[in-house]
């Protein structure tokens, strides 16, 4: 009998290492023939640690498991186990998903090549090897895949630009500096299915003629770093990357390094300062060479696209948002986790139907979409479809797919101030609107919170946000106005504002 005990950061943070040891010990005490597999997480984090036991009908889940629940796993009556959640793949949260990128997550042992290949792994890379670079780029263009880091730029066009550039060395750089609060999709795929990212990067290398790749992975994810390094070593030793050298580089705690040009400077060993564009990284990127720089999720979507065809991927989604998005439900939410679904589902369905509302049981007050630089939405906007353009039309952004839920105890003026504080804390300092504006913004919001000249200061904040939005060099200063202005516009009562200031254009 195989028993699966996840080894991703969430499960480990909730004690899965001890659980795995206890299950092994209990099995040997009873002389039971059990092998414990350390799988990745399925992404149903409210159930973690979620232990799965193989049965004739499928894998049966138990969660959230504690050490005290271990002996009952061996009682012979699995259905009667107090923590049984039934067949894992029939849990509505799981069954309703369209898992293309995350298909193997939680199912397989993340560092088992056998598991990976027997679940469709390396099919895309194999196909790519038989194709011309132009054909690979065309396939990615046909898929409609857009940058999943937040900017939403068409991946195939980026690749095509790098392919057409002439240079002695080209690079594939993976942006795994997942600093947005409320996001964990990069972490999850790296910890649960690292070969998928390795394969995606190798395909990108073939598509543009790059022989070196770097994954810039944040230091706050120590487990992801070690799992990915292990996977790269295994793939390299197995001869699967004959023409591609892949290396993991650890970040050093700077949020701004998630901005692509700051990331490149950091990789080069400098302060993570944002570069002015042009030149674009596709032409002059890492060490001045043509560079594909993509988010983890963009690269991890590629193996499916090559294996099944761009059209198969593009068959999902709505409008110009093609394919699926791993939406991350976080914060004060009952069923928090990763939900991969085609674009088009509404915000309300995600929060209420899938997420089950708040964890506290209180009414939802606000949802921050797209990380610390994303706008707050109110329940009145829950009809917004999950789609790049629809979010933009509502003065928001999808970003990296995170949704952080707040209940009615949240103080939105405080959250607006936090956005400015965070920007001040993380600003690289290169451009004035971000460097100075964030600190001034914090001060003005402090005055509003202290109810000093509220109307005047609210107008000042609106002005400042305009300056930051249009004058900043990158999204850090440029998007900090989203949470600030949306909080002020949607929840003026928290600011002591009686007449609504017009929203920033």
């Amino acid at each position, binding site marked *: 009998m195989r028993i699966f005990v996840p080894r991703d950061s969430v499960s480990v943070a909730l004690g899965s290492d001890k659980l795995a040891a206890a299950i092994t010990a209990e099995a040997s005490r009873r002389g039971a023939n059990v092998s414990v597999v350390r799988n990745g997480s399925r992404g149903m984090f409210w159930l973690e640690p979620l232990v799965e036991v193989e049965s004739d009908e499928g894998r049966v889940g138990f969660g959230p498991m504690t050490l005290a629940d271990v002996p009952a796993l061996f009682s012979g009556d699995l259905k009667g186990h107090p923590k049984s959640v039934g067949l894992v793949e029939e849990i509505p949260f799981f069954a309703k998903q369209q898992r293309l990128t995350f298909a193997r997550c939680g199912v397989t042992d993340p560092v088992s090549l056998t598991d990976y290949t027997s679940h469709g792994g390396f099919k895309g890379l194999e196909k790519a090897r038989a194709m011309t670079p132009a054909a690979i780029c065309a396939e990615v263009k046909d898929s409609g895949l857009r940058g999943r880091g937040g900017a939403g730029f068409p991946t195939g066009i980026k690749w095509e630009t790098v392919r057409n550039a002439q240079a002695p060395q080209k690079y594939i750089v993976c942006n795994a500096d997942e600093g947005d*609060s409320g996001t*964990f999709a990069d972490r999850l795929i790296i910890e649960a299915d690292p070969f998928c990212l390795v394969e995606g990067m190798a395909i990108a290398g073939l598509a543009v003629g790059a022989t070196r790749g770097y994954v810039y992975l944040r230091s706050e994810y120590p487990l992801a770093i070690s799992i990915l390094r292990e996977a790269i070593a295994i793939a390299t030793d197995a001869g699967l990357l004959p023409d591609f050298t892949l290396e993991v580089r650890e970040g050093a705690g700077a949020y701004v390094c998630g901005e692509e040009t700051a990331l490149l400077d950091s*990789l080069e060993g400098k302060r993570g300062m944002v570069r002015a564009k042009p030149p674009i990284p596709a032409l002059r990127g890492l060490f001045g060479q043509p560079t594909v720089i993509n988010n983890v999720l963009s690269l991890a979507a590629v193996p499916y696209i090559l294996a099944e065809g761009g059209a198969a991927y593009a068959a999902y989604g709505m409008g110009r948002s093609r394919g699926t998005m791993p939406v991350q439900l976080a*914060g004060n939410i009952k069923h928090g986790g990763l939900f991969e679904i085609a674009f088009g589902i509404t915000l309300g369905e995600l929060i209420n139907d899938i997420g089950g509302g708040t964890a506290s049981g209180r009414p939802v007050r606000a949802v*921050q979409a797209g990380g610390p630089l994303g706008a707050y939405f109110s329940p009145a906007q829950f009809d917004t479809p999950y789609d790049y353009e629809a979010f933009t039309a509502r003065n928001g952004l999808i970003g990296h797919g995170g949704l952080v839920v707040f209940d009615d105890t949240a103080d939105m003026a405080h959250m607006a101030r*936090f956005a400015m504080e965070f920007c001040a804390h993380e600003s690289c300092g290169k451009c004035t609107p971000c460097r100075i504006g964030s600190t001034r913004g914090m001060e003005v919001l402090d005055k509003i919170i202290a109810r000093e000249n509220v109307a005047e200061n609210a107008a000042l904040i609106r002005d400042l946000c305009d300056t930051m939005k249009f004058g900043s060099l990158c999204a850090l200063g440029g998007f900090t106005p989203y949470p600030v202005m949306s909080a002020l516009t949607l929840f003026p009562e928290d600011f002591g504002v009686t007449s609504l200031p017009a929203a920033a254009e």
Partner: protein
Amino acid sequence: MTTQWDTSRAAGIISKYLPLEGPMLPILHALQEEFGFLSDEAIRLVAQTLNVSRAEVYGVVSFYHDFRQEPPGRHVLKICRAEACQSMGSEANAQKLLETLGLDWGDTTPDGRLTVEPVYCLGLCACAPSAMLDDELHARLDAQGLQALAGEVI
């Protein structure tokens, strides 16, 4: 446990990373891992070896939140202060702990046992609030859990 500064051992560590493209960050990480922080001697040696000015190395060291120029406490507790953890009450929990310990963010207890630092997201946002004690992750940490966690090492 980290060790006393030793120039020849530091030089050995640096030489391991020299063949890398852009070796600065990996070198700084490795030196900090070994010696606990990046001392003036460390900065001088890195500058010398990479043939860049000390100011340049200092600029890099001071830019990144991870790099320290002072030795930390024997244990480091990083408490997440980002939005998802805030939505579950992390700020109040953290303030309570800091008050109990008589510390501010970034401070170390007088006996040198514990440094408390903010961290902006550990990626455990669906099981907030979260924290990391040394290399160990913790999630669903309520006020009591956080106090107990700190209590393990002080």
